């Protein structure tokens, strides 16, 4: 009896140990997906397009009616310093499309990822690529009336934010009733032009642990009030229409700082 219980204990312990090991074990061929949620906010409020009101650093009240941006060139670095790149994954985040707010990388090798980086925009190589490579969210035919491509100055609009504000001068020259911030500019193909590509890097306080049975989700908060104030104080009264790369640089410098990693979910499937 004693022996049997000893044996039972031993077996039990072994099972526990094996299963514990299994949980942490990173099989060389294990893969899973990893998602990034873009939680666009307006200060400490939920961003509801056309509704939520907030003030920028200069005290100008505004709403957001449109918010779109490209996310590309995502890289993940694991605790051993190994980098995984996703050069062919281009995402277009549109606040008006709930499905677009969570982006998913497929077949991510199992590892503990402690760093994340991504570019807001479409890199220069893709921006000059043959039209055969412009499919999915990069297809200029896919934007309808909410355009993300400059046909007159070949290139994508990396980041677009529009909205209302009482600060916009009445009877302004351009007849604008909304502010329009359209930021693009990949540096030019045949001439040097402004480059507003921004690559954002984050250290994950809590690693994203991709396992055979764990598909982590990194939760990112993007506070759009910072688009007006993170580095450069932007006045809507004077900068209500930005449609060209040079003028957009101050905005790009701002949104480069408007994103933070809030937390990581490592829930088992």
């Amino acid at each position, binding site marked *: 009896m004693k022996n049997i219980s000893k044996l039972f204990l031993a077996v039990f312990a072994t099972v526990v140990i094996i299963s514990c090991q299994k949980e942490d074990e990173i099989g060389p061929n294990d893969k899973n997906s990893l998602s990034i949620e873009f939680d666009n906010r307006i200060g400490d409020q939920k961003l509801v397009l056309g509704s939520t009101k907030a003030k920028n650093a200069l005290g100008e009240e505004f709403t957001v009616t449109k918010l779109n941006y490209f996310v590309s060139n995502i890289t993940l670095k694991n605790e051993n310093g190994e980098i995984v790149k996703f050069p062919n994954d281009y995402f277009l985040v549109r606040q008006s499309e709930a499905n677009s707010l969570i982006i998913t990388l497929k077949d991510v090798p199992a590892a503990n990822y402690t760093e994340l980086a991504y570019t807001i925009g479409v890199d220069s190589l893709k921006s*000059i690529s*043959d*039209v055969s490579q412009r499919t999915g969210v990069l297809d*200029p*035919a896919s934007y309808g009336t909410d355009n993300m*491509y400059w*046909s*007159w*100055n070949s290139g994508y609009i990396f980041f677009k934010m529009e909205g209302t504000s009482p600060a916009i001068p009445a009877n302004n020259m351009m007849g604008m009733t909304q502010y329009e911030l359209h930021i693009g500019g990949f540096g030019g193909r045949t001439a040097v032009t402004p480059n507003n590509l921004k690559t954002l890097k984050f250290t994950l306080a809590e690693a994203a642990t991709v396992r055979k049975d764990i598909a982590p989700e990194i939760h990112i908060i993007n506070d759009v009030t910072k688009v007006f104030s993170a580095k450069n104080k932007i006045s809507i009264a004077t900068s209500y229409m930005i449609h060209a790369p040079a003028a957009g640089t101050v905005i790009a410098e701002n949104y480069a700082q408007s994103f933070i990693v809030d937390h990581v979910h490592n829930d088992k499937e």
Partner: protein
Amino acid sequence: MKLKILTLSFSSVVYLGVACKSDNSQDISPDQLFAVPANFPNPVYDFSKNPITQDGFELGRQLFYDGDLSRDGTISCAECHSQPSAFTHHGHDVSHGIDNLRGIRNAPPIQNLAFQKEFFWDGGVFDLDLFPIAPIENPVEMDEKLGNVLEKLRKKEKYATLFQKAYGSKEITTERFLKALSQFMNSLVSANSRYDKYVRKEVGGTLTEEELAGREIFKQKCASCHSGELFTDQSYRNNGLAVYNAEDIGRARITQNPKDNYKFKVPSLRNVAITAPYMHDGRFYTLEAVLRHYNESVLDVQTLDASLKDGQKLGIQTATDEQTKLIAFLKTLTDDEFLKNKRFAAP
């Protein structure tokens, strides 16, 4: 030279109807889709990504002449780019687009685009394949969305057949649509003017004494910018025009560099005699007016091209008889075979 031979041999493999020619005296017969004229530089366009085929060319031609590329079906590419005027909008300083709206620039000819590295007066588009999106989506030109255009084409039975023939399946995609237009536009090569035949020593290539004298004056006074066989160095320059529209800052609109303010692309002079009016905004209705500008009204503006202020007087001075000779020479650049080639006409 080696490159040219390579291109030529490449051409003969890829392009339908291009006969192999071992000598350099290559003239383009009307049934060829594309070939590099013997006196031309190498093409800029990467044909390996979009070789011209007879069916692709035909699809492109149908699209070029189709009003459904515009919002209300009224404006095709050919509206502002008409063949008898070397695919310009003859007689219009700026073109009338949809709803009779006007743009701010003069429609340039569509010719020899395969040799051009950038498009528009300001060079804002760097790839011919990406070009058509601009007029299609410009609110004063065709005012349509590319996606809608493709939807409309998908509903027309004719295009199911044409896309099938050109690409092997009926599927209509952005790439297929744009590349078919490129195939048609790339085939629009103008290289059979009397001048061309003269330099290639071909039959019909005789220039009069006056035209030859004009050519000598041209070489001395014009060819530093209107250089080579394309008659442009494809640079952007300010030629001292009075600013009529301060907002149109030309090349600086793209580079956003104040040094490029009011600079516009040096246009090719091929078919120049029949592509009036002239300049980026079509302000001069005759070649005489252009030469008069260079003689007497070049302004000393901030970004004025250095070549226009190296003499005692600003601009380029020509005597009356020199002007007559110059214009006689420029008229030898008119390519009637190109202007009347039925293969480029409305289907």
